């Protein structure tokens, strides 16, 4: 027989019933009252049984709900870990992709001076061959020689200038590429560096007939992370090309630097602008208005992290739909040392 939690109450009831039977003979006048009492007790005993069942069931529901909650929390935590891993991968591949774009830019830019140098060199080779033929025939006149000297002077000057230009380009690209791939800290001049970065973006800019004007005093010398600056500017320019000038209209962007410490850098475009509802979210990871068209929504998040982290500064966005967008960066001329303050990292 199974154990009965209410055995005592049931015994009391049995006992009371027997008592009433015995009382029927000795004190019949009490019988009815006692009967009512017993019924009331019986009812209350059943209420109690019922309430215990009710609260047991509620308790069980609560426990089940808690288990479910715990399970969902674990799921959410796992999902978060996966998301972070995915974000790391995207950030890494974004960096690789921007390096790829840089290499394409390098190839394009260097093509022009190298091409000029090659055609000058071949022109000079032809002229030299002609001169040798004339000499071999013993027919070299003074005017032939003078003409050759003029050609040689012009072409060698052009070859030299274009090779120097190619060398300078390679040097600056190398600098940008190294900076971008590493997080090396060094002292650099902001103005020239901005121009070097823009050079690497020339192919994209030229394609849409866009121009970027740079207004930067020559002085500011920064002690910090040129790679971060390069990545920030590249992201801002590419964003303007992707979002601000979608209608194909050529645009004008400006980069204006004022102040030497803290430095204020404003990047502005005169394109479509950002809707007021979107503006507060543009720095959030995965916020994009181009989902499904290749936008991951990480560009500005990375920009934000670079400004707040390595540069130790702030970034804000302002926009007027139809009139353009401006990003304002403010950061110290000397970037914080790692662990110098909590914001770095």
């Amino acid at each position, binding site marked *: 027989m199974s154990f009965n939690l209410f055995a005592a109450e049931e015994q009391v009831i049995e006992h009371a019933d027997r008592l009433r039977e015995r009382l029927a003979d000795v004190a019949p006048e009490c019988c009815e009252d006692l009967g009512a009492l017993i019924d009331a007790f019986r*009812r209350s005993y*059943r*209420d109690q049984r*019922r*309430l215990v*069942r*009710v*609260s047991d*069931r*509620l308790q069980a*529901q609560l426990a089940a709900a808690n288990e479910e909650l715990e399970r969902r929390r674990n799921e959410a935590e796992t999902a978060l870990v996966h998301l972070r891993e995915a974000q790391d991968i995207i950030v890494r591949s974004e960096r690789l992709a921007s390096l790829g774009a840089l290499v394409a830019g390098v190839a394009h830019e260097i093509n022009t001076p190298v091409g000029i140098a090659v055609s000058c060199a071949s022109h000079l080779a032809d002229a030299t061959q002609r001169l040798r033929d004339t000499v071999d025939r013993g027919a070299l006149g003074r005017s032939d020689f003078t003409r050759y000297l003029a050609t040689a002077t012009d072409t060698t000057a052009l070859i030299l200038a274009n090779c120097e230009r190619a060398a300078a380009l390679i040097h600056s690209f190398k600098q940008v590429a190294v900076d971008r791939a590493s997080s090396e800290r060094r002292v650099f001049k902001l103005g020239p560096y901005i121009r070097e970065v823009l050079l690497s973006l020339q192919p994209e800019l030229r394609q849409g007939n866009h121009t970027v004007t740079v207004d930067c005093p020559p002085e500011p010398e920064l002690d910090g992370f040129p790679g971060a600056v390069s990545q920030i500017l590249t992201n801002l320019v590419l964003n303007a090309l992707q979002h601000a000038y979608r209608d194909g209209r050529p645009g004008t962007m400006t980069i204006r630097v004022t102040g030497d410490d803290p430095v204020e850098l404003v990047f502005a475009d005169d394109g479509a602008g950002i809707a007021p509802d979107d503006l507060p979210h543009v720095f959030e990871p995965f916020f994009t208005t181009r989902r499904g068209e290749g936008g991951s929504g990480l560009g500005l998040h990375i920009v934000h992290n670079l400004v707040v982290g390595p540069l130790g500064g702030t970034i804000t966005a302002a926009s007027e739909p139809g009139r353009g967008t401006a990003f304002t960066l403010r950061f110290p001329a000397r970037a914080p040392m790692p662990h110098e303050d909590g914001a770095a990292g």
Partner: protein
Amino acid sequence: MDALRIDATRRTPLVDFDFPAGVLRLAGESYPDDSASFFGPVLTALREWLAASDVPVRLDVELVYFNSSSAKALMNMFQALETAAAGGRPVRVIWRCDEDDDAMREFAEDFSEDLDHVEFTVAERLDAAGSGRDDAA
């Protein structure tokens, strides 16, 4: 006696007692901060009306969640109705819950255990929006 109506809150159910028509309804969630002060006046009104009138009674109970003290208040209400029914008055209680809500169905069984004179039935819930009356049932 006039109708008694208390709008539902997050923790207390809708109480819609149309006394003149004899149609009473409880719906929603019930875990008041103070069950006694919430259900006390409701029980008093019910008992007074049961004593003062003899129109047939129909009570729709459509609770999705209730705590233990609300359960006790319900039992008290059912007890009052059982007494009236034992006196010959037609009383129906319709316990409404989702078909697959096993817990609520078991509660219905428990609660009807002591009702010998009340006609107790279990039915589907009324429209979720909740204020419509199902007079055909």
